[in-house]
């Protein structure tokens, strides 16, 4: 069973920094918010899909995007091991996205972003081969290596390797039936 957790970043900001603020600006603010998110996540059951919700955040500057999104995701990624926590970002507008994309590029990370209608897209750095496989997973809901081979004609070992990479980067989950799916759809 995968647990679904939602973190309203604006509430964390108001609770930990100042209840009058709606803007995520400055590094100290970002660091405080990230630490609060990390503490909250430490108490959550695993495996889980954690939605980081920016809906009520007016402004997100580069420094805060780095502290909250960049450092949070980077820490989980560098911890290694079998992924037990997956991230999804929600409630971002274009200016938020610009800051988040710039940060992800610096860390060589990618994350799934969900829009208000529930549609998801990949943001960040991922090579073209892995990206097209991720899109196939999104399109089909569940795939195994042979599905990827059938679709793109690559050797099945290569297809398995790409699925492993997507799993290691927390962009897909492994299901009990051997297939992979997008985290929020698991």
């Amino acid at each position, binding site marked *: 069973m995968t647990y679904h957790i939602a973190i309203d970043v604006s509430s964390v900001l108001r609770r930990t920094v100042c209840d009058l603020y709606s803007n995520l600006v*400055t*590094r100290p603010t970002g660091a405080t918010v990230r630490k609060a998110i990390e503490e909250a996540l430490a108490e959550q059951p695993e495996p889980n899909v954690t939605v980081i919700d920016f809906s009520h955040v007016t*402004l997100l500057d580069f420094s805060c995007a780095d502290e909250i999104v960049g450092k949070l995701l980077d820490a989980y990624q560098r911890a290694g091991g079998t992924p037990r926590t997956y991230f999804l970002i929600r409630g971002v507008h274009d200016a938020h996205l610009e800051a988040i994309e710039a940060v992800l590029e610096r860390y060589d990370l990618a994350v799934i972003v969900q829009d208000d209608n529930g549609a998801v897209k990949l943001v960040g750095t991922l090579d073209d081969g892995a990206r097209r496989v991720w899109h196939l997973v999104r399109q089909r809901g569940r795939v195994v290596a042979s599905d990827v081979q059938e679709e793109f004609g690559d050797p099945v070992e290569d297809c398995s390797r790409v699925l492993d990479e997507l799993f290691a980067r927390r962009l897909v989950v492994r299901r009990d039936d051997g297939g992979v799916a997008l985290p929020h759809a698991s």
Partner: protein
Amino acid sequence: MTSVITVPPSLDDQTFEHVLEQLAPLPVDQKILVDARHTRWSSPYGLTALLTLGQTRSERMSFTGPETEETASYWQRAGFYEHAEKVFEMHGHVPRPRAAASESNVLLEITAVARSDDVHDVVEKIQAKAQAILVNELNLDPMATMRFAMTLSEVCQNIVEHAGTTGWVAVQTYRYRQRLGRRVVVIAVCDAGIGFRKSLESSQGRKLSDRWDDAMALEDALIRGVSRFRDPGRGQGLAGVRRYVGKWEGKLAIRSGTARIAIVPAWEDDVPLREGLPAFPGAQVQITIPERVVQR
């Protein structure tokens, strides 16, 4: 004996250099009077840079403001005198604040920035006024308000993170007559702190090249996104500012120490890099965003 530094009639980032040229040869403990009696106009850069000037000498400088009522009153409404009284020994007439005397050209009065909370306050304040002016009057994209506030946040954070002293920020709009003939919105952020070169030198293990000077420090920070901090997320703030300024066909100029670097748009005559300027502590940033011409 007191030396008199004459402030030019029109004070902006270019003419402020005349002030520094007069100041440079004077010993740090020299008694100085900064004389702005004949100044008729100042950009926000001029006003914030004047305040930083007041921080740079061991002997507190004297200051006398514009003689014309209109100019003095504008400087008062822009918040200059409130801060000037803290850094200068004031002489002559100091206009008193009047109730409800807000200035429509002033998006952000001169505001002191020293801590992270100050940056929050600046961003909260600017959002209220920025939408109306940037979108309705300068024809910028509605999303520009967000990007503008992000830009402001990042440049103000440079003071908090690198200056080690209080700096000032101001945002105003005015008609830029030189070549452009359009309205502009100008962000000025000035401090008299440690400056870019010393900030980058404080990075542990950083190798300095033979040609290490203020100009190279500015190039490293602005062009190559180098920061004194080692973690990979650093150095994005100025890179983001540079991107936005490029998108708006705006101009970004940073002066630090003896050099000044600029991202110069097609509508401007300025040079990208100036070296050998009179030494001045800290960093002085000016961002100029022009009105977008709507094609009919």
